[in-house]
């Protein structure tokens, strides 16, 4: 039997269905049960367990958590390390850095009262809290598509299990279930593959600025006790990316958690222009900077991972609602890039959508537009903080980290976030690459095996696994484009922007072909965003596949 033969699907009905067990989805589920314990609330999660696909820095602002579960401290939430010190550096070269005096640091970058956490651990804890309230969570099941009937989102169809590489059904074939609900909240995170379709279908981005993205690559280290300062936050701009230019923007972070653990990472804006740039190699060489190496030397790398992040802010935020559902968290794009934080925003947006859904169901409604969610959002502190930092990313894109950062400082510290002007950034991330012919190849140093490593040994540390015999979940609209167009024009940048070595150009001359090692995929979605031909579509693989992050 082939993929197209119709199958009988089991159907389950709920009051509210949540797609994705991250901070947004779980906060929504918890809020729903708090408001009405009788509601049937179901959460599906593509990771093998809750938290397996979660990756974040993370410095966590507890504002939304305080509102959602005020007793979190007594209930054992994994917030263990309070921020003690904030260092902000301008990295001027591979060896030099200038530390910014505190008064020059923009207000949103101050972290008093925040915590250094593993977001993976926090969502596992949120999952336990949600289950305690009666939420049904099903990890290992990926939502494949939205069920849309008469223009109304009615739920999702889960991906089939047991389909082989050729798309034929194996003996253990199990068709994906249909989960239906009065309202479906999409919380897939940045560039959710269903969220992307919904934005297109309902034209949710009409009249908004284009969305902008970055790729964050992170490692977790255990460092010698003498180099460990629990509570220390180090942020940086500049080397190995641009400080004055605008061709390669981004920033770095290094956080000292508990148990001698240090999280280190680099975020590269996906508006970068050089097709030869490799975010992975930039990150590897970044760790050799003396300001960073001083903490990592002699340590052991425990984990590796990567995830795209959505940073267009308020200007690029799509309409949040459509008939039968809503986008919440990074699936919508609520991250506050000026704070480099999205978890508290995601949680808050989930809570607001939950409140709107609970009210609607109490009134006997179903399947309509939750416009109350939009109203609640616009009246919330979340909207206020996104509004105050709406220009941040745009200034950086226009003027670089130093000058753009200075303008942001004026807006945030002198105007205290209250100013009348809005600037726009209309260039698309996938259209920003310059041709390879006019670009120069950076020469990346060979990894030393102590501070820097190669891609494959890194992916190994992400515990990524997919059932091998299944259709590739990275689909090419036109299979000829990578070799026919991307290779001559851009030296096929997928080979470099993918942080997991999924894409390779193999063979010589006319025998050259584009190889997709889909089982390496860490579900970061960068290819779906950055491919200059917009030819790659990320779809959900069999549930349970993907990275197995323990505490990222």
């Amino acid at each position: 039997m082939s993929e197209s033969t119709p199958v009988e699907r089991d159907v389950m009905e709920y009051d509210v269905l949540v797609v994705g067990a991250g901070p947004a989805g779980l906060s929504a589920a918890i809020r729903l049960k708090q408001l009405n314990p009788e509601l049937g609330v179901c959460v599906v999660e593509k990771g093998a367990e809750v938290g397996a696909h979660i990756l974040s820095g993370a410095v966590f602002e507890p504002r939304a958590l305080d509102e959602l579960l005020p007793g979190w401290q007594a209930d054992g939430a994994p917030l263990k390390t309070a921020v003690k010190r904030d260092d902000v550096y301008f990295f001027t070269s591979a060896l030099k850095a200038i530390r910014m005096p505190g008064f020059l640091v923009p207000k949103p970058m101050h972290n008093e009262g925040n915590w250094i956490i593993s977001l993976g651990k926090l969502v596992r804890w949120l999952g336990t809290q949600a289950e305690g309230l009666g939420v049904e969570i099903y990890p290992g099941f990926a939502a494949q598509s939205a069920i849309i009937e008469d223009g109304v989102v009615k739920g999702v169809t889960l991906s089939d299990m047991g389909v082989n590489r050729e798309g034929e059904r194996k003996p253990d074939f199990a068709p994906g279930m249909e989960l239906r609900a009065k309202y479906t909240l999409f919380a897939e995170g940045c560039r959710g593959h269903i969220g992307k379709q919904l934005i297109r279908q309902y034209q949710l981005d009409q009249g908004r600025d284009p969305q902008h993205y970055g790729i964050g690559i992170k490692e977790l280290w255990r460092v010698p006790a003498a180099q460990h300062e629990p509570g220390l936050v180090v942020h940086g701009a500049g080397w190995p990316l641009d400080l004055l230019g605008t061709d390669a923007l981004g920033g770095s972070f290094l956080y000292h958690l508990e148990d001698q653990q240090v999280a280190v990472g680099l975020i590269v804006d996906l508006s970068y222009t050089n097709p030869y740039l490799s975010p992975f190699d930039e990150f590897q060489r970044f760790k050799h900077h003396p300001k960073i190496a001083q903490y990592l030397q002699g340590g052991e790398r425990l984990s590796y991972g990567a995830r795209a992040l959505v940073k267009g802010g308020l200007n690029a935020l799509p309409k949040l609602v459509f008939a039968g559902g809503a986008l919440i968290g990074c699936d919508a794009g609520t991250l506050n890039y000026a704070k480099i934080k999205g978890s508290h925003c995601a949680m808050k947006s989930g809570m607001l959508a939950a409140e709107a859904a609970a009210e609607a169901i109490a009134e006997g409604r179903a399947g309509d537009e939750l416009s109350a969610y939009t109203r609640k959002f616009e009246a919330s502190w979340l909207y206020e903080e996104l509004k105050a930092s709406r220009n941040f990313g745009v200034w950086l894109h226009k003027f670089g980290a130093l000058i753009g950062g200075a303008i942001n400082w004026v807006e945030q510290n002198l105007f205290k976030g209250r100013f009348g002007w809005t600037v726009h950034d209309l260039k698309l991330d996938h259209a920003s690459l310059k041709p390879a012919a006019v670009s120069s190849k950076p020469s990346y140093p060979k990894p030393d095996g102590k501070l820097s490593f190669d891609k494959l040994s890194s992916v190994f540390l992400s515990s990524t696994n997919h059932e091998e015999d299944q259709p590739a979940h990275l689909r090419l609209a036109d299979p000829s484009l990578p070799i026919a167009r991307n290779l001559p024009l851009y030296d096929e940048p997928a080979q470099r922007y993918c942080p997991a070595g999924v894409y390779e150009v193999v063979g010589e001359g006319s025998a050259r072909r584009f190889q997709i090692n889909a089982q390496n995929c860490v579900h970061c979605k960068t290819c779906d965003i950055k491919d200059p031909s917009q030819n790659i579509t990320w779809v959900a693989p069999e549930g349970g596949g993907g990275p197995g992050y323990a505490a990222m």
Partner: protein
Amino acid sequence: MKVLVSVKRVIDYNVRIQVKPDGSGVVTDGVKMSMNPFDEIAMEEAVRLKEKGKVTEIIAVTLGGAKNEETLRTALAFGADRAVHVKEEGEIQPLTAARALAAVVKKEGAQLLLTGKQAIDDDANQTGQMTAALLDVAQATFASKIEIEGSKATVTREVDAGLETLEVDLPAVITTDLRLNEPRYLKLPDIMKAKKKPIETVSLADLGVSPAAGLKTVTTTPPPKRSKGVMVKTVDELVAALKAKGLVS
């Protein structure tokens, strides 16, 4: 015929194991846990025997802390009819497990205990054998094929020399090897139904079992890192290198 299937909660096979810096064990905080893969095979076999009409009831049993309930829910989703949770928060040695399993087999009047040949966390490969000894019943280990006819089971075992076929009288203990079957995908409707199936909780004391304390973990260390290889150009160079290392004389 009642069959008891013993399932253990272990660190998932796909997780990269980290040893705690103080050597007191391995890191389990935030680490994915799942059913021991050999026990999954035992579970699958029990379900297939039931589908063939050889078995009337499948009871899953586990030993361990509160979180082991997840493992029992997985067993119930596979097709176990009900489950017994022997709750014990402390360390469980193979002999303790064997004593508890023997007690549950007797209590339930099970004709067959199916379990994985070993658990992938400690690789002890002792529990099945010790349980059979404590119950004074037949045992067939490392099964790659199981057939049940009346009061006898015919079991094919994988041994070094090839395949060995045993006939054992029931009641018996059978431990399962990798090639016995391929466990099915768990279907979401079955996982949903499993939430409603009954789990009985008992303690070691309820079963009249005293924990064994014969083993003590002294220290845990990661395996040595593989050192860099050397490329040699000729056979002579290889022989010389081997001689230099004292590997050939």
